[in-house]
Each structure stands twice: as C-alpha cells, then as structure tokens.
C-alpha cells in the first residue's frame, strides 16, 4: 500500500481555510485518481472527507438510526467497487450522494418496515418546548437542546411520506441546497422547491395536531367542521 502525500491525507477540517473551492476540487480529483489506481489510503481519505455528509444524507432518509452506520459502510463499499468506472465528469460528491440515495431507497424497499408512530407520543412538556422553539427568533444554542428538538421533530417527521421527510431533513437539518437535492434525487429544481414547500405544510399539519392535543390549548377537543 503506497502512502498518500501528507497534504492529501490531512482531514478536511484541517485544510487551510484559505484553500479555494477550486483547489479543494482539484485535490479531490487527485485523490480519486489515486484511489482508482488502487491507493487504499487515498480512498480512506475520501471516506474521511465525506463521511459526515453521507451520514447526514442516510440518516435523513432512513428512519432507524441503528441501520445508518451499516448502510453508510455499504455505500462506501459500492463506491470502492465501482470507482474505476467513475469518469470524473461530475463531482465525486454528487456521484457518491446519488449512490447513497439509491442505497437508502433499496434498503427501505427490502425492509418494507415502517415503524408505527402514534399521534400522542409527546408529553405536554415536550410539545410546549417545541412551541417555544417555533415562536423563538433564534434557534437554541445548547447542543443538548438542539438534539432534543431533533428528536421531537423526528417523531413528527415519521408520520410523513419517505420523500417528504427526506427532503425536509436533507434541506433544513443536513444543509443540502435545493440544487444539490435536485441532482442527487434526479428531480427538476422547481419540482424540489414545490415539494419542499408542500412538505413543510404537511409537517405543520402534524405539528398543529400535536398542539391541539395539549390540554388548555384553545380549541383542544373541538371537532373540526
């Protein structure tokens, strides 16, 4: 196994901030070329650079957190096996994310398991906290609080169809842009925007139903006419 040059093997976070996007792109292309010629260290470096986003992408689509690590490893294995066929006409990240998305849909199709969720699985206190976040101007600063918000939101997102859930999580929680989502999900940019907007409305429907179950909430228990 040949060693990758030290500057290449440096983790993404350690790269100089001044390094331009173009230079990073060129570095990545070089890493891909090395990995294609059989350099395992270069491929390991590619994993290191992309693991967090692939993790975010996979956990955004899959519902079961315990399966995420396994699926991400499977993604990198597939990428490794088909790396020689990758012609670098698109960015490595785009190709990698597309493989990740396909692997997730395959996994969901094979499993065919949709965890049961119940409308009333949040405590009154939790609903109040979420209500506080919704009306606050800035997001909570504490990581614990943000983790709790994620947990509560995930429970609501569970009730949405897979694609709506994936779009919202990838766009808002994992930081993918509309353009990136269009490429990796094979959709038109406008379609992504419309679907995102409608998914938000669906999420808010679920949110409103939860608020309604809160005792003391004006209109709780009233039937909708």
């Amino acid at each position: 196994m040949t060693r990758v040059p030290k500057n290449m093997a440096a983790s993404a976070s350690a790269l100089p901030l001044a390094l331009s996007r173009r230079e990073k792109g060129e570095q990545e292309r070089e890493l891909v070329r090395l990995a294609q010629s059989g350099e395992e260290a270069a491929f390991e470096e590619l994993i290191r650079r992309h693991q967090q986003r692939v993790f975010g992408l996979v956990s955004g689509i899959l519902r079961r957190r315990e399966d995420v690590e396994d699926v991400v490893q499977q993604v990198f294995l597939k990428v490794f096996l088909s790396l020689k066929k990758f012609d670098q006409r698109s960015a490595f990240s785009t190709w990698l994310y597309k493989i990740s998305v396909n692997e997730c849909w395959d996994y969901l199709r094979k499993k065919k398991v949709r965890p049961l969720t119940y409308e009333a699985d949040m405590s009154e206190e939790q609903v109040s906290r979420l209500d506080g976040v919704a009306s606050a101007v800035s997001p909570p600063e504490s990581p614990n609080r943000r983790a709790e918000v994620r947990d509560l939101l995930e429970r609501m997102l569970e009730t949405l169809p897979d694609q709506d859930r994936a779009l919202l999580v990838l766009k808002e929680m994992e930081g993918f842009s509309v353009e990136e989502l269009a490429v990796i999900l094979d959709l038109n940019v406008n379609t992504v925007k419309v679907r995102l907007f409608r998914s938000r409305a669906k999420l808010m429907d679920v949110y409103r139903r939860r608020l309604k179950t809160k005792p003391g909430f004006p209109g709780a228990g009233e039937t909708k006419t």
Partner: protein
Amino acid sequence: MNPGDLNAEYRTPACSQYEAALEDYVNGEFADRETAKLKEHLQTCSGCTDALAEAQVAARLLRAAEPTVDPGAGFARVTMARIRAEMETLEEKSIWRPFVSLAWKLSATAALALVLLVTFDVKHRDNRLDQDELAIMAANEAPELLSDEGRQPSNRDEMLILMAEEGHAKH
C-alpha cells in the same frame, strides 16, 4: 388567519403557480423582479400569506435541530477494514470460480454420457430379445422355414408373414 398564527387551522392552500417562489422566499433566495411580483400577490392572497407563514415556522423548527454528528475518525478505518474483508472474500470466490465452472461442465458431460449409455443398452437389449424370440418361435412352429436359406426372416413380422404363407400353401 394572521400570518404566523399557529393556533389557527390552515385551510386555504397556496396558489400552485407561486409555490416555488414561496419556497425561494422561505430560503431567502429570490430575484428582485420575482419578489416584487410575489409581494404584490401576497397582499391580495390570504392562502399564500398563511402558507408562507407556516413554511417559515417549519423552517425555524427544522433549522433549530442538531445536524447529524460526525461519526469520528475511527469510522473511515473501520469502513476500510470492512472493504478489505469483502475484497478478500470476493477474491477467494474468484480463485475458485474457474474450478467450480469446470466441475459443473464435467458433471454435465458425465451425466449426458450416462444417459446415452443407458439408452443404447436398453435398445440393444430389446433387439437381442426380439432375435431370441424369433429363433424360438421358428424352431417350435415352423422348423421348415429355417431350412430355406433364401427365405430367412429378419424380424418377427416377416416370420409371421412367412408362417401365414406357409399355412396357406399347405391348405
């Protein structure tokens, strides 16, 4: 419904032709010309105004959530170890593949040869039985036919024909 009023029911959907522009607005990405057009529309459309307010609350909620944490430096090492293990298994399979393929070909050939042998043997045995039967029949029922060199029957049918002719001639 007042914009941002979460307690109210969301009944009127947004106008479909403005949904993409409304999404841009939520994300803070819009061209000036489109924004002016959208703002003008929002002044007269309560459905779009309500939907926009809701979408903004949804964005606020989702952006407040913690993104997925980095799996750590060890993950790349563990993944590479798994890839190496899988590659070894694949290579092992590829080493044995030509032998397995050859073994299958040999077994198929052997099976075919066996079928041919059995078929030939059964057919040969049938012919031999026919000949033996013919000889016994001729010896018992028409020994004179066997003495005629020019009229030796070659099979059971010919033998029966000769016997019939012989019987007819006698009468």
